[in-house]
C-alpha cells in the first residue's frame, strides 16, 4: 500500500486540532518573497553576465542609466510600465479573489480589435466622443473575451487557468484572420489594419519621448484599484479569495465574485489593447500585444496584488525592458541579458506557487490522458 504520508510526516492521529494555517489558500505573494526573487534574479543575472564575459557592474549601470538617466529614458520606462501596471491591477483583482487568469494577452488583442472597430465607426465624430468610445469598445471586447471562461468557471468549475490560456490562443488566431482578410487594407502586403483613425489618436505628452496618454490611464486605474482594495465590495471579493466557504456562508455569491472579478481583469486588459492601438502603434498589427499580457500577470503576482506592489513591479519591468535596450545600444551588451533577468524573476517567485503549478500540471495531464482514452 502506498506509504506516501509517512514521508510527509505529520501523521499524528487524534492529536488536538492545530491552529489555523496562515497562508493556506492565499495566492498573493508576500513582500519578502518578492524582494528575494528580485535579489536572486539580479545576482544570477550578474553571474550569467560574468560567464559570458561581460562586466555585470557596467551592464547594470548602463541599464539603470538607460531606464532612468534622461528625460527620454524615463519616458520610455514609464510608457513601457503603464500597460503592465494596468494589466497588473486588473489581474490583481482576480488574484485577490482566488482566481488565476492568464488570459490577459488575448484580452489585450481583443481590446485592440474592439478599439479599432469602434474608432472606425466614430471616424467622423469629434475626438471627445471618439476617444472615450474607443476606450469603452476596447474594454468591452476585453470583457467579452473572458466572459466564457468566467461563466464556465462559475457554473461548471472549469479551471480558469486553462480556459483563459485557450482563449488567448483563439485571440491570436482571430487577429491573424482579421488582419489578413476583412481588416486588411487592399494595398497592404503584410497583415495589418488601416491606420488608426486620426480623431481617436492618443497624443504624446512630452515631445521627443514616448511618454503617452496611457500613463495617465495607468494612474487613474491605479487610483481605482486603491479604492477597490479599501472598498466593502473589494473586501467581500478578498474574503472569497481567502475562504470561499466562509464568504458563501456570509451571503456572498461565489459565482458573482468569479464572473465579476474576471470581467474586471478583462476590461483592464482591453483598455491596454486600446492604448496600444490608439497611442503607440496607431495601427493594429498581429503582434499588437507584444508580451504585455503575460508580463502584466507577472507584475500582479510579483507585486503581491497590492496597489503599491503592482506599481513597483510594473516600474521594475518597464525599467528592465527600456534599460536592456539602452544597454545594448550604449555598451553593446545584448539586450537578451535583460530578458534573462526577467525570466529569472519569473522563476524566482514562481517557486512560491509551486504547489499550484503542480496541481495545474496534474490537471492538464489528467485531461490529456482522458482525451487519449476517448480516442481509443
Amino acid at each position: 500500500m502506498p506509504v506516501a504520508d509517512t514521508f510527509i510526516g505529520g501523521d499524528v492521529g487524534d492529536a488536538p486540532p492545530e491552529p489555523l494555517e496562515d497562508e493556506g489558500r492565499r495566492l498573493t505573494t508576500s513582500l519578502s518573497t518578492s524582494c528575494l526573487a528580485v535579489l536572486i534574479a539580479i545576482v544570477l543575472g550578474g553571474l550569467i553576465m560574468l560567464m559570458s564575459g561581460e562586466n555585470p557592474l557596467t551592464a547594470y549601470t548602463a541599464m539603470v542609466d538607460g531606464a532612468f538617466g534622461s528625460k527620454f529614458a524615463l519616458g520610455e520606462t514609464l510608457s513601457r510600465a503603464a500597460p503592465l501596471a494596468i494589466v497588473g491591477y486588473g489581474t490583481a483583482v482576480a488574484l485577490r479573489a482566488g482566481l488565476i487568469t492568464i488570459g490577459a494577452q488575448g484580452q489585450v488583442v481583443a481590446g485592440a480589435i474592439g478599439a479599432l472597430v469602434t474608432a472606425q465607426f466614430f471616424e467622423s465624430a469629434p475626438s471627445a466622443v471618439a476617444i472615450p468610445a474607443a476606450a469603452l469598445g476596447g474594454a468591452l471586447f476585453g470583457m467579452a473575451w473572458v466572459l466564457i471562461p468566467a461563466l464556465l468557471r462559475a457554473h461548471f468549475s472549469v479551471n480558469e487557468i486553462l480556459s483563459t490560456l485557450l482563449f488567448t490562443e483563439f485571440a491570436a488566431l482571430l487577429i491573424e484572420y482579421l488582419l489578413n482578410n476583412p481588416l486588411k487594407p487592399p494595398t497592404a502586403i503584410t497583415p495589418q489594419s488601416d491606420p488608426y483613425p486620426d480623431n481617436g489618436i492618443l497624443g504624446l505628452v512630452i515631445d521627443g519621448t514616448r511618454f503617452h496618454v496611457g500613463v495617465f490611464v495607468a494612474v487613474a486605474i491605479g487610483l481605482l484599484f486603491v479604492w477597490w482594495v479599501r472598498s466593502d465590495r473589494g473586501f467581500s471579493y478578498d474574503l472569497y479569495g481567502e475562504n470561499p466557504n466562509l464568504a458563501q456562508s456570509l451571503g456572498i455569491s461565489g459565482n458573482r465574485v468569479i464572473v465579476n472579478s474576471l470581467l474586471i481583469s478583462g476590461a483592464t486588459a482591453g483598455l491596454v489593447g486600446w492604448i496600444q492601438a490608439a497611442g503607440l502603434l496607431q495601427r493594429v498589427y498581429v503582434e499588437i500585444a507584444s508580451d504585455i499580457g503575460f508580463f502584466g500577470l507577472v507584475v500582479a503576482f510579483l507585486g503581491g496584488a497590492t496597489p503599491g506592489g503592482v506599481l513597483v513591479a510594473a516600474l521594475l519591468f518597464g525599467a528592465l525592458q527600456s534599460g536592456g535596450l539602452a544597454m545594448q545600444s550604449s555598451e553593446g551588451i545584448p539586450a537578451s541579458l535583460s530578458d534573462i533577468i526577467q525570466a529569472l524573476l519569473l522563476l524566482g517567485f514562481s517557486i512560491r506557487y509551486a504547489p499550484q503549478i503542480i496541481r495545474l500540471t496534474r490537471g492538464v495531464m489528467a485531461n490529456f490522458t482522458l482525451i487519449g482514452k476517448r480516442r481509443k
Partner: protein
Amino acid sequence: MTSEPGADPATGTPLSVRGVSRRFGSVQALANVDFTLESGEIHALVGENGAGKSTLAKIVAGSIRSDSGSMSLFGQPYRPTSRREGAAAGVAHVRQQLSLVRGLTVAQNLQLGRPGAPAFFNAASARAEVERWSDEFSLSVPAETLVDDMPLAVRQQAEILIAVAWGARLLILDEPSSALGPLETKALIALCHRLRSEGTPILYISHRLPELAELADRLTVLRAGRVVVEGADVRAADLREVATLMIGDVSLLEVNRPEIEQGTTRLTVTDLSVSSTQEIGCHGLNFEVAGGEILGVVGIAGNGQDSLAKALTGQVKLASGHVLVDGEDISGSARQAIAAGVAHLHEDRSTGLAAAFSVADNATARHVRSGRFTRFGVRLADKIARHAGELVERFQVRPPEPAARASSLSGGNQQKLMAARELEKNPTVLVAHGPTKGLDPEAAKAMRDRCFASAQAGGAVVVISADLDEVSDLAHRVVVLYRGRVTDAFPIEEMTSERLGAAMAGLTETMGDASG
C-alpha cells in the same frame, strides 16, 4: 517502548498487543491496551469517535509509536518506527482517507513506493499484475484509469488490492464502509471474507454495528482509550449491549444548566433532504425548535451533520423540503438566513474564519455588504477597529488586539472570535456545530454559556455534535442521525446509553417523523 524481547513466545499469532499506551498532550488516547488478532479471523474493533481505534491502528501500522507496551507480529517482536517499516513487515493499513495518489493510475500506484520496486516503471508488468490480482479476487479494478476518475468504492478496492500485492500478511481496514452505500458495503464484506479464506487476518475498525454481525468473527470494544470487551464472539454478542458499552454511562446534570423558559416555535424543518457528493446528505428530516429550546443533534460523524448544518443556514440548495425561521422560508439563501438572524458556529475553524485576515475584519465580517462601517463604499478602518474592539472585549477574545491576524490566536480564542462575529446580536436561530470541540475546559465553558445565553434571549438553538457529553451538557431534547435519517428522538431526561447507542449504531428502525 519498554518491551522485553520475546514477551510473546513464537506462537505464530498474527498480532499480539500488550499493555500499549499512548498520550497526546493532555489526552490519554490509549491506556494499557491488550489485543490479540488470531489467524484466519476478521476482528472488529469498535468504539465511539475518539475512543482510540485509529490511534491503535496507527501504532500497529507503524505511523505513530506507543509510549509504552509491546507488540509481536506472527510470533516475532514487532517495533515499527515508520509506516514503511510496518508495511515491510507485512502490515497494511487502509485508512479512511485513502492514500492512493489521485493523479496516477492504479498500476502506477502499485509501483509507487513499493518495497523493493525497480527504479524504472514497467507499465506492462504493473498492468498485468493489477489485472491478475483483480481477477483473483473477482474484482473489476481498472489498471489504467486515474484514481481520480474512479468511484470511491473502487478506489478502496484498489488500495486493498495493492496492499495484498505488496505482500500484506495482515490488513487493517479503518472505517472502510463509512462512505459506501449498502451494495458497495456488501461487496466489501465479500472481499473481506475472500481475504480471510486466503489466510489474511483482518483488523476491521468500524462503528456500524449492523454490518459487523455479517462480517466479523470477534470484536473488541474500546472506550476512552481502554479495552472494555476483548475478543468477544460476534455471533454470541448482543449488539445492543455492545452499543451501550461503546458509549458508556451517559453523564447528565454535570453542568449547571440555567432555567430557560420556552417560547413558541422559531425553527421549523419540514421534509428536509439534501443530496451531497461529499457526504451522506440528509433524507426527509422533520423537526421543530422553540425559542429558548436547545436541540441536540447527535450521531457518529459523517452521518449527514454537515449537510444539515448547511441546510439550516441557507448554504445549500435543498433537494426537497423547507427551513422556516419565524415562518419565513430561508431555504437555500445564506443572505436570507443572515437577515432572518440565523447564526452559525462552524464546526471547523478553518472554514469559519478568514485566517490571514485581522481579528477586526473577522469580527465584523457579518456586516460585509450591509453598508455599515462604509462611506462611499469604502470601509472605514477606524470605525471597524473600534467596533471590533468592543466585540472582542465582550466575547473575551485574548489578546484583545483588533489588528492581530486571526491565525495568531489560540484555538479557544479563534472559537470566541467566531462567536463574536456570529452572536453580536441575539440570534433567532443558532446552529452550533461542535461548539466546544477541541477546546480547553475554560474555553468550552465560555462556548456553552454562549449557547445558553442565546437560548435565554429567546433563540432556538441547534447543537450538532458527535460528542455526547457536549450534547448532554447543553440540550433539552435530542434527535439521532444515522445515515442522514433520524433514527430516534427523545427529551434529554429519557436519554440512556442503551437507547442512544442503538440509535447511533443504526439498530433502531428509521423514524419517519421526529418532531418533538
